């Protein structure tokens, strides 16, 4: 593979030199460059048309405003009309063929509207001729947000897209226009340069991105067929262009994120309090003392005092030391730091009359907030296009990327004592700054006793351990694609495309022989006579190796043209074949590994039980031998047509058949036929329409279907073989599942109604869309008639899911752009607002005898008639005046019999507290610019959803569940008027369902609505500094904080269970192009 890459690179490099040479020869002839720039910003304008005097379009500028012209001396003087939507048209007269680039400056027309070309991945179309629902995001929104992943950069920028966070950390799932599946994948399909992309987004260089288009409704997405049900994100990367001087562009950017602040976490009590609980429990004999089972440090201290091993005086001194200790402070000091990430990127693009190219190289490195965690990646992208003849072109693109992640750092959670969690008084260093051993697995007295033996030192020093374990996760991806195009007749194009993507990933961990990991393992295996089963040497753990090869081929025929100038048509049809093979091989552990000589040892007796230290018996863990292979195959054919008449009426329609090996055995179920169609009517182009202030009014209606896949279910019957039993001893097989020959795609039908408008020459413009999605044949657990042979009290056997459930999603997307210009100050604001709601319309919820099932925080069982995102709660009746515990109502009477209350509660007694995903969300962004300087800010908000606030779990302080609400708890009669936090129950009193009667009550369900200042930024751009080179400098800050939140507890609703809230991110970048 590496050789292949090398050859590829060589070929590409040769191309560059060749093209430069061709270009310079051309220059001596009659060819020259034109660059069209914005008069104010001096930025190149793309899409400017150069028309001859008779109105015929001669050239259209590409990126950065470049194009080329070929003129013969005899044509001089030559007169052009240079024009672009949003700019004043200008006449250009050429008397002499210029030696260098001819610069044309265009001044902005008042209230400019930019022209947008949308890409569906299969073809591009101007926005005016689209009937479907698209969201277009240009590169600027993506490029200047370093250090973030690609999708996160779209938050607040892309209309209809929502990131749904889990409340615990930064991970999220993406929803475009809500959700339309119950059990299957919710995330949208990603299409990169016309091919379905299933790799890591980290393999895409953000600087290479030209633009991103979201396909939101059926007419837009249905061309991606059965996997487009969740919407499609189409990413286009930059390409070179013919006749273009090479441009080298370099980019450096950095981002710094503040160090985490652990005081955010309220599920915590300080050392003094926790030691109080521990002392009480100790006195009541709650800690079982054995020779070797680890106990928390304070308990050991109490034992020492009890056994008279230390004086009371010494005890008090040590106790005071622990009471003062704060593991959060220790962690902030020694384990965490501000995260820094740097990105360096360079690209070269240009083209001759024969070929064009875009090459880029990027290097990213980042140091995470956890000390020791870092990552780096290198991304190479080579794209080339050859004009073999006026009719034939060939493009060849290659890419290589490699990511190295080192997750070996030490986190706060790594300081947990086995069986006892994190002790708030844990110290890493003593008063003199020496490392303290961290007693994690075995009792300190047991370790002390072994100090004199032949065993290895058995202490763990966390800060040292961090440096003795090297963990690397490597992932690489190599990509190649080619596209052949043949233009025939006047309007026809024949395309042949092929892509192969190969990626592999593996995690390798090297444990030094001095690491605790190795010492501990050696000691555990050391026999009574001190012989060692595991040699005292390094250990190399090569994790599972996953290799994926995806191949796609496509044949496509396009016709694009016009009949009598008025009727334009665009038709295309093709077929697409795709395979993804994923092979996973097992992990391998090598003992006695020496990084110097690269030798190790694997020959062990894996089947013997050895006596182990401190007790029991132990086996050398058996090497895994199971390989896995997954093959996904897809085949489809598709056709799409759009006809527009006088740009007033557009009719579009598409048809696609998708087949896959994931589905039913019956041939007609292997695939599905998906169709869509749409119309649009530009009312403002009608003659009868004469409102001066309304420049555009276009109505759009589309309807169609797309699908979704669930790879976790199989249509094949499965069996497992077993050796035989008496009396015959014949080997036999169990039928695990008879399979489901009717398994099929989930189907999502979408109706989209849209209205595009523009007032006062584009001062206000925008779109309003309403959609309705009916998802059918959703996969879900189902009841079966026992006559089918499937039974488990009427509920399906686990894992037996069929297509039967339905849900409905509806919503509204509003997009409003306001832009104005006073003198040299231009101002533009963008308002995005979305509503989305869903309801499960058919689902067989199992008969659940106990309502606690619905309060499960991780997965709430789907239920007909309510949202998928529903949050239930118990009713709240306040605290008792007598004991400060919650009151409940049984048959209308107050009671404190929680068990009876909850076990007799019916589904209908539960309160619907809301949904946990925001039904309303939106953003406001504003950009101001004056000459070369720009300023922008982005404010985002989410509304109408709820989260469950955490609080104390009465009585579970003794089970290490802490919360600062403990200080607000009920302590004496009368407190119930002041607080809703129940009393703490004494040790040993465990009242069933008491904690959940409070924690799952409506009382703790808080509104999650909030508004956040997401980003503020400054930008300076100048292209007159060094000749015509462009320099751009930008600086921005993200996560500036919450401007308003509905909850009164200073809880960030997106991070309500997190140990720390997102910190400010400072971005800084510099971009140069020559």
């Amino acid at each position, binding site marked *: 593979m590496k050789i292949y890459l090398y050859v590829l690179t060589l070929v590409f490099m040769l191309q560059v030199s060749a093209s430069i040479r061709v270009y310079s020869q051309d220059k001596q002839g009659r060819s020259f460059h034109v660059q069209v720039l914005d008069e104010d910003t001096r930025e190149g304008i793309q899409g400017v048309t150069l028309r001859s005097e008779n109105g015929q379009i001669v050239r259209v500028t590409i990126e950065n405003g470049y194009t080329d012209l070929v003129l013969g001396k005899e044509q001089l003087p030559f007169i052009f009309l240079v024009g672009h939507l949003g700019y004043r048209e200008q006449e250009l007269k050429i008397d002499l063929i210029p030696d260098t680039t001819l610069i044309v400056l265009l001044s902005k027309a008042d209230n400019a509207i930019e022209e947008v070309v949308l890409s569906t991945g299969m073809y591009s179309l101007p926005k005016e001729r689209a009937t479907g629902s698209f969201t277009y995001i240009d590169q600027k929104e993506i490029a200047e947000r370093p250090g973030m992943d690609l999708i996160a950069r779209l938050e607040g920028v892309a209309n209809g897209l929502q990131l749904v966070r889990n409340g615990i950390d930064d991970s999220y799932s993406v929803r475009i226009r809500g959700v339309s599946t119950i059990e299957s994948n919710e995330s949208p399909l990603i299409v990169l340069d016309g091919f379905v992309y299933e790799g890591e987004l980290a393999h895409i260089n953000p600087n290479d991105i030209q633009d991103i288009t979201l396909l939101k409704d059926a007419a837009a997405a249905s061309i991606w067929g059965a996997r487009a049900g969740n919407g499609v994100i189409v990413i286009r990367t930059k390409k070179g262009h013919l006749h273009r001087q090479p441009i080298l562009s370099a980019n450096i950017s950095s981002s710094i994120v503040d160090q985490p602040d652990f005081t955010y976490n309220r599920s915590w009590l300080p050392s003094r309090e926790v030691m109080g609980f521990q002392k009480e429990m100790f006195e009541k004999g709650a800690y079982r003392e054995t020779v070797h089972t680890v106990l928390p440090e304070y308990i050991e201290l109490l034992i020492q005092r009890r056994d008279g091993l230390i004086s009371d005086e010494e005890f008090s001194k040590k106790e005071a030391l622990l009471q003062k200790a704060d593991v959060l402070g220790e962690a902030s000091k020694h384990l965490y730091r501000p995260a820094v990430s740097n990105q360096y990127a360079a690209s070269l693009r240009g083209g001759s009359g024969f070929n064009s190219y875009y090459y880029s190289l990027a290097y990213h490195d980042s140091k995470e907030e956890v000390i020791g965690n870092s990552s780096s990646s290198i991304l190479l992208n080579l794209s080339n296009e050859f004009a073999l003849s006026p009719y034939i072109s060939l493009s060849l693109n290659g890419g290589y990327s490699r990511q190295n992640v080192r997750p070996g750092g030490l986190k706060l959670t790594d300081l947990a004592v086995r069986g006892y969690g994190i002790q708030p008084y844990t110290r890493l260093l003593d008063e003199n700054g020496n490392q303290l051993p961290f007693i994690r697995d075995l009792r300190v007295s047991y370790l002390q006793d072994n100090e004199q033996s032949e065993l290895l030192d058995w202490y763990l020093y966390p800060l040292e351990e961090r440096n003795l374990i090297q963990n690397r996760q490597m992932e690489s991806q190599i990509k190649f694609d080619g596209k052949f195009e043949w233009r*025939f*007749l006047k309007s*026809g194009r*024949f395309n042949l495309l092929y892509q192969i993507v190969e990626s592999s990933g593996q995690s390798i961990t090297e444990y030094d022989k001095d690491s605790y990991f190795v010492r501990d393992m050696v000691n555990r295996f050391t026999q009574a006579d001190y012989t060692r089963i595991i040699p005292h040497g390094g250990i190399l753990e090569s994790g599972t190796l996953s290799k994926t090869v995806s191949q796609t081929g496509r*044949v496509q*025929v396009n016709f694009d043209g016009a009949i009598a100038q008025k009727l334009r048509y665009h038709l295309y049809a093709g*077929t697409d*074949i795709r395979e993804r093979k994923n092979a996973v091989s097992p992990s391998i552990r090598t003992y006695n590994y020496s990084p110097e000589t690269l030798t190790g040892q694997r020959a062990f007796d894996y089947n013997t039980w050895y006596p182990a230290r401190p007790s029991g018996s132990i086996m050398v863990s058996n090497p895994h031998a*199971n390989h*896995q*292979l*997954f*093959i*996904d*195959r897809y*085949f489809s*054919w598709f056709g799409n047509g759009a006809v527009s008449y006088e740009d007033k009426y557009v009719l579009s329609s598409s048809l696609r058949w998708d*087949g*896959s*090996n*994931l589905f039913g055995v019956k041939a007609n179920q*292997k*695939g599905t036929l998906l169709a869509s169609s749409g119309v649009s009517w530009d009312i403002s182009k009608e003659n009868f329409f004469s409102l001066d202030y309304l420049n555009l009014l276009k109505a759009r209606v589309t309807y169609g279907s797309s699908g979704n896949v669930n*790879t976790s279910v*199989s249509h*094949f*019957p*499965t*069996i*497992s*073989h077993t050796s*035989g*039993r*008496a*009396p*015959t001893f*014949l*080997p*036999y*097989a*169990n*039928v695990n599942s*008879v*399979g*489901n*020959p*009717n398994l099929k795609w989930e189907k999502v039908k979408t109706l989209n109604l849209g209205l595009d408008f523009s007032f006062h020459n584009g001062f206000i413009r925008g779109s309003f869309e309403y959609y309705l999605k009916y998802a059918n044949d959703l996969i879900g657990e189902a*009841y*079966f*008639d*026992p*006559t*089918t*042979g*499937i*039974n488990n*009290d*009427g509920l399906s056997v686990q894992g*037996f899911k*069929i297509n039967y459930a339905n849900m409905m999603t509806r919503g509204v997307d509003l997009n409003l752009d306001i832009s104005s210009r006073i003198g040299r100050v231009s101002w533009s604001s963008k308002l995005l607002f979305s509503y989305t709601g869903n309801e499960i319309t058919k689902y067989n919820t199992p008969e659940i005898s106990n309502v606690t099932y619905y309060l499960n925080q991780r997965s709430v069982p789907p239920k007909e008639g309510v949202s998928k995102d529903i949050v239930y709660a118990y009713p709240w009746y306040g605290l008792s005046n007598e004991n400060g515990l919650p009151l409940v109502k049984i048959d209308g009477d107050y009671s404190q019999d929680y068990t009876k209350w909850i076990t007799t509660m019916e589904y209908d007694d539960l309160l619907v507290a809301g949904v946990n995903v925001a039904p309303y969300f939106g953003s406001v962004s504003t950009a101001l610019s004056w000459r070369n300087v720009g300023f922008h800010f982005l404010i985002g908000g989410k509304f109408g959803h709820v989260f469950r606030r955490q609080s104390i779990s009465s009585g579970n302080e003794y089970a290490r569940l802490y919360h600062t609400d403990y200080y607000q708890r009920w302590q004496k009669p009368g407190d119930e008027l002041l607080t809703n936090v129940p009393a703490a129950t004494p040790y040993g009193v465990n009242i069933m369902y008491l904690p959940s009667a409070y924690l799952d009550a409506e009382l703790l369900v808080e509104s999650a609505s909030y508004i956040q200042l997401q980003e503020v930024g400054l930008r300076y751009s100048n292209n007159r500094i060094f000749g015509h080179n462009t320099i751009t400098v930008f600086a921005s800050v993200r996560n500036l904080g919450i401007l308003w939140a509905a909850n009164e507890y200073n809880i960030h609703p997106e991070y309500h269970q997190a140990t720390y809230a997102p910190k400010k991110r400072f971005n800084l970048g510099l971009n140069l192009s020559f």
Partner: protein
Amino acid sequence: MKNCIKLMCFITLGICFCSCVDDFLNVKQDASIVTPNTIEDYNAILNNFSYLNGQTSHELGVIGSDEYILDDNAWRALPTPYMRNGYIWSSNVYEGLVSVDWNNGFERIKVANLVIENLEKMDNQDKNESEWNRIYGAAHFLRAIKYYELAQLFCETFKPEIASNQLGLPLRTESNVTSQYSRSSLLETYQFIIDDLLIAESHLPVNAITNLRPIKSSVYGLLAKTYLLMEEYEVAEAYANEVLKYHTELIDYNGIDLESISVNSLPFPEMGDGNKEILYFSSTTSLRNVHFSTFKADTNFLNLLEIGDLRRAIYFIDFNDNIIFGGSYTGGVNLFSGIALGEVYLIRAECRIRLERIQDGVDDLNFLRKHRFDHRHYIPLQTGSYLEAMEWLIRERRLELYLRGSRWEDLKRFNKEKQFAQTLERIVEGKKYTLPPNDPKWVWPLPDKAIELGGYEQN
């Protein structure tokens, strides 16, 4: 025009391409899943004897029959509602819970269907002819015997004159769980059983390495049982004769060492291994109603056993002040519910008596009795009266087929004839329950979930 031709070429190419698509899409997604596709796989599926030959659908029949009595404490201690309700023929048998008999029967029908449909799909060159035949036949036999068992519990007894209007069972012929079927007529159900058995007969071998696998004689035995139920006595007798062509040897109970019998040493071999009377081995679950811990032999039944009938000493064991049943051909606590030679003799005897060849019938009865009686006490039956012969036959069936799951269908069958009809009685907690002949409760209701989700007509 030229371009149009080119375009046509592309389309043609595309269509050719499409024809390969089926192969392209037939690949397994997860290669580590074991998908059955070879003869060995199907053989292994049918070798799952403890599953396929166990837990037969006989529980409700045993529960409702007059072969045992429970005292109030034992009755109250029964773990699931259907066991208590079934004992007193309550109208709400399952109380919303499942029917074990229904579930077990249809689960196995699903497996049989899976094997049958996949064997039929196999390419000819893959077929190992004799193995293919044997497995194909065995799967049909399995499906037939399950339908036979279910029909005895959930359908009325077969009445030839109205069978096409009597409710039968949903006849599922595919493993696809999403297909729906409605209830057939009882005639169709029996015809389905017979069709399956005829296919089984033509594919199964004469001998097998174990009586857990069906052979031709198993099929003949079941055909004889089926035709007997359908009152087609000539045909039933013919199939009984077919069995007796290959198998005639009954166990002579005189050869069993009575002294060695105890709870820990039951008289018959475990899993019927080597029991030459067994034409097809199958067994019920260890049903609590007749379990060692609960069981009390009905003294009325014990009194039926004449002096010298060895079945008294072999079937019944004194255990903890109780007399328990230890004579199961399973050699354990599970009841034998398969097909054994003794029954075949009884079928032929009944056919002959009913066909007015009373002496031939009585000879068959005597042949069987001779093997069950102490030779010193054996007196052959002698009669020329149809009624007397029938009464002997009914009594002999009750004794020979004691706790084999067939009493329920016999009671139902004989209830058709006034002179043999019987009313069952139970007394529980001082209350008397009766089940007179022709009471609709002779037919167990379909389980609630099946009615609800399958939309079947309830009995």
